[in-house]
């Protein structure tokens, strides 16, 4: 049925075109013969083809265009009175004799255009007559095309300012009046098209209707082109009339399209000056009209306008553009009860974008917008709609993008309140956006209050919110999130120690609430942030002594201690251990022996009680040794205790090579290459010897278990230590000992059981080369090496 419909339509169109061509042929003949009677007859017959009701707008347009081309020829003929000998006035009457209205009116418009051109009558009279007479065609499609023909032929003949048709009797007002009237009628016809379709064809009809919209919109375009439509006239006449029609037509499609049209065709300046009028129409539109797009367009345009030149900014202020837009949006939302929440929010997004672009200095405006949004959201359950959530994210991101400064956002009281209305998921997304913004712009959050607000904003990341099922968290996402938070923590900084301390306290408070899963991510940055503060305070320590200063390293160390302790609940002993060591080092630098000792104690306790994994132990012991080596704050006793412990642990490692390495590393604990560092050559040697013993034990074990003694790497490593201390002038390390070690290695390498190992061989070879080099270099060092034979 529908298929037939399509085919039939093509057939009808073909018939129509044929009819036009046929009559046009005779019309041309009559034109050539200058036979007015025949011309009128055939042109009327030709135009009768346009009376069809069978075509869709699209096909009808095709037909119309054919007729339109012919009418141009006709107009040429009418224009030349010498060809037909009838005055244009008489011609104007003559064409009205046609019995059928549609051909009659097409002819009338054609002659009318000639009539205006002849200036035998005031343009306004002719125009008025034409636009009135066209009322006779009430069929929507035919009427629309007829009137669009009228608009077309009259376009260059409007009595505009500066136009040749302007006269005493004809003012631009008449031109405007004419176009407005034609517009109104066309819109009425267009709207009527909607009312006519039966339900089942609605969709198709809507589509067809939409194809016709430009015919209507063209009038607005013409209006905007009229030179004489100045702001005054636009304000007093054009806009109110157009809006009246838009509001009264009560048609969704038309209202949307025409509002958009107004916004697009008239200058921004006009919009700005008539904002109130324009906006007041919005709440009156049908509830289904997509006002948000319309308003967004408007705000887009206005903000572009504002950006285009700084001169116009005062105008914006003068007309209170923001206030008007804001209240209009409020009213629209109020009026359109059924508007989905996403619509409302996207309106606020647009408004926000507008204010950010136009009034970047007015943070209060931003807050107002957010406040309005909160008001809209309040009393509603958390957002479910994905699009709405996206819009909220957009809303909240906009100020960040604009100011590149989270501090601004932190000053917005409504910002967190908007976030409250997001579900956990989106809240997190938003939090990440915030963090990214901070990271991107390197923004420094420098007061504790701001920090507090910030944590409130990103609380989705900072702690488990109610209702989040634990299992829905993706491990990797979680890590990613927490890493972001960790990065963020470094951005919380203030040069003033007191304030910084406050910040640190705030951080700590929030971090501690985060739950055990987050601590491993969030504690380290906190610790380092605090350590940074400590290092800054280091020098001033003496100066401020005695005063009531909260920000002393001691106090901070207390905080640190508590913080790291919290980690034990996780538990992540390795991490805690590292942090203790870091703190100990810092305490060392601050000359706080007891504190440092305490940290080391904590570290050792952790090592003993928590670090069970052998690999972890190796790492831990090396860290401990490394840190301990650098400590210079300890008195002999403390130091002895600690070094003793460390060497003890080293020797108790599980694997022999690990033992060996840890032990020779311990040698450094007794030889600090500083001016007043400890230099206990004997104990160094003891360590090295012990390492050697362990190494040979390892060799033997290897021999027994695998049948090969394994690489000599350990020996070479110990040799290197020997060389180090030898060069540093440890009197206990003699060239003879080195010589012995060299020989031992060589023997080991040549023994049958030794498996060749390229790595250890190369290592040994390089070491030998080094000795060689030192010998030949000359100077004190070479003398020392003299006795060593390679």
């Amino acid at each position: 049925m529908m298929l037939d419909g399509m085919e039939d339509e093509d057939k009808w169109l073909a018939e129509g075109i044929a009819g036009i061509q046929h009559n046009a042929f005779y019309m041309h003949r009559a034109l050539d013969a200058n036979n007015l009677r025949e011309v009128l007859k055939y042109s009327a017959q030709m135009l009768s083809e346009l009376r069809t009701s069978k075509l869709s707008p699209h096909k009808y347009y095709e037909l119309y265009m054919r007729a339109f081309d012919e009418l141009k020829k006709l107009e040429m003929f009418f224009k030349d009175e010498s060809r037909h000998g009838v005055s244009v006035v008489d011609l104007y009457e003559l064409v009205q004799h046609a019995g059928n209205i549609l051909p009659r009116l097409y002819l009338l418009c054609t002659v009318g255009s000639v009539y205006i051109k002849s200036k035998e009558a005031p343009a306004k009279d002719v125009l008025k007559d034409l636009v009135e007479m066209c009322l006779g065609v009430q069929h929507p499609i035919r009427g629309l095309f007829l009137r669009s023909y009228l608009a077309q032929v009259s376009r260059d003949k409007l009595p505009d300012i500066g136009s040749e048709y302007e006269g005493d009797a004809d003012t631009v007002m008449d031109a405007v009046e004419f176009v407005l009237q034609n517009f109104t009628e066309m819109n009425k016809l267009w709207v009527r098209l909607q009312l006519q379709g039966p339900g089942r064809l609605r969709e198709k009809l809507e589509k067809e209707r939409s194809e016709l919209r430009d015919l209507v919109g063209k009038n607005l375009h013409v209006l905007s082109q009229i030179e004489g439509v100045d702001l005054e006239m636009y304000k007093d006449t054009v806009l109110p009339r157009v809006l009246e029609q838009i509001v009264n037509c009560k048609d969704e499609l038309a209202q949307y399209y025409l509002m958009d049209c107004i916004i697009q065709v008239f200058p921004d300046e006009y919009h700005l000056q008539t904002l109130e009028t324009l906006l007041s129409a919005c709440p009156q539109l049908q509830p289904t009209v997509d006002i948000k797009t319309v308003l967004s367009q408007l705000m887009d345009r206005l903000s572009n306008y504002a950006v285009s030149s700084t001169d116009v900014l005062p105008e914006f202020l003068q007309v209170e553009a923001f206030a008007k837009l804001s209240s209009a949006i409020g009213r629209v939302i109020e009026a359109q009860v059924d508007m989905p929440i996403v619509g409302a929010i996207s309106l606020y997004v647009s408004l926000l974008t507008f204010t950010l672009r136009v009034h970047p200095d007015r943070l209060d405006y931003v807050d107002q917008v957010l406040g309005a949004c909160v008001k809209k959201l309040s009393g509603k359950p958390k957002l479910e709609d994905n699009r709405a959530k996206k819009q909220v994210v957009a809303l909240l991101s906009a100020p960040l993008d604009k100011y590149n400064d989270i501090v601004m956002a932190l000053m917005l009281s409504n910002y967190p309140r908007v976030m409250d209305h997001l579900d956990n998921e989106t809240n997190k997304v938003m939090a990440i956006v915030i963090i990214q913004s901070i990271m991107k712009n390197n923004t420094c959050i420098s007061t504790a209050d701001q920090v507090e607000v910030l944590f409130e904003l990103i609380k989705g990341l900072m702690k488990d919110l109610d209702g989040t099922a634990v299992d829905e968290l993706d491990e990797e996402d979680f890590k990613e999130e927490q890493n972001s938070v960790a990065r963020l923590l470094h951005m919380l900084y203030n040069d003033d120690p007191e304030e910084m301390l406050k910040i640190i306290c705030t951080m700590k408070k929030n971090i501690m609430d985060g739950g055990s899963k987050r601590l491993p991510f969030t504690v380290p940055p906190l610790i380092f942030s605090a350590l940074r503060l400590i290092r800054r305070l280091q020098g001033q320590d003496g100066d401020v002594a005695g005063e009531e200063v909260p920000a002393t390293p001691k106090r901070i160390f207390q905080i640190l201690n508590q913080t790291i302790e919290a980690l034990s609940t996780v538990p992540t002993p390795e991490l805690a251990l590292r942090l203790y060591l870091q703190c100990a080092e810092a305490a060392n630098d601050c000359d706080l022996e007891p504190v440092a000792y305490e940290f080391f104690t904590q570290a050792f306790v952790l090592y003993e009680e928590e670090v069970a994994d052998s690999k972890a132990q190796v790492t831990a012991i090396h860290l401990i040794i490394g840190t301990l080596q650098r400590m210079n704050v300890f008195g002999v006793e403390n130091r002895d205790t600690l070094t003793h412990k460390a060497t003890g642990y080293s020797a108790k490692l599980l694997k022999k090579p690990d033992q060996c390495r840890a032990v020779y590393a311990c040698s450094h604990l007794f030889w600090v290459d500083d001016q007043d560092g400890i230099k206990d050559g004997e104990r160094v040697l003891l360590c090295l010897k012990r390492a050697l013993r362990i190494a040979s034990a390892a060799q033997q074990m290897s021999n027994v278990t695998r049948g090969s003694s394994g690489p000599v790497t350990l020996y070479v490593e110990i040799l290197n230590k020997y060389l180090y201390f030898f060069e540093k002038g440890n009197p206990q390390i003699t060239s003879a000992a080195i010589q012995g070690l060299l020989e031992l290695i060589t023997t080991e390498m040549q023994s049958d059981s030794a498996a060749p190992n390229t790595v250890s061989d190369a290592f040994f070879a390089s070491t030998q080369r080094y000795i060689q080099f030192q010998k030949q270099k000359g100077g004190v060092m070479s003398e020392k090496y003299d006795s060593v034979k390679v």
Partner: protein
Amino acid sequence: MNYLIGAFKPSCNISITFSDGKSRKQVPIKKENGHTVMVPLFQSQENIAGKISIEPIQGKKVDHNGVKVELLGQIEMYFDRGNFYDFTSLVRELDVPGDIYEKKSYPFEFSTVEMPYETYNGANVRLRYVLKVTISRGYAGSIVEYQDFVVRNYSPLPSINNSIKMEVGIEDCLHIEFEYNKSKYHLKDVIIGKIYFLLVRIKLKNMDLEIRRRESTGSGANTHVETETLAKFELMDGAPVRGESIPIRLFLSPYELTPTYRNINNKFSVKYYLNLVLVDEEDRRYFKQQEITIYRLQEETS
């Protein structure tokens, strides 16, 4: 009537000329045989004067019992064709009985002739004016020559000419208000008006304005009415909605109208009506007919 003449060659030529024939306006009329000829135009109270020339065929004489010219106003009903009713009959004797040997001219004049009715060619009735020249001959039958002329009478502008305004409708269906600017129109007039739709519940397709002529002939039981639609003028295309106002502008000049004739000599009447017809999508017609009076206004030029 003159069948004998048909048997012989007419023995003379009669020509009738009007004294102001050159300057007088000529109008076309349609003869019975379908030919259109131009004839002079008069109006009531005019002098109808001229000259009648009788020219015998070479070498013949016309022997007659007298020559006369008559001015006749006749009404002919088509159901009674050939039977004329003369409502006006004036006679001028031109010659006493005698012979005519050569061309002879007779001036004649009917002064201030009362010709109250206009020439009219209707569907069932015809009113005509004719000059009839009769050369009476005893045995051979008379020689008769006719000269038609047309009479048109002009009316002054009516002193009262109210508009026609009316509200009509079908309950809960269609309610319109229409207005024609006048009730009396002259022949070249324009009907201006509008139709205002107060209520439209039916799907209209279009609306026409028709001009209908109602010619009634005879009287009493024999009255015969013939209605003819002279104009069908489309006013509106498509379906209006409530509140629409459709303009009317109908030029009367293209149509062959006559003035309204009321009870012409008790023989016939010609009346005109405007018929507003609304057609719905099922081709049902809704109409309202209003009589208008048409009159002939003196044209300024001519």
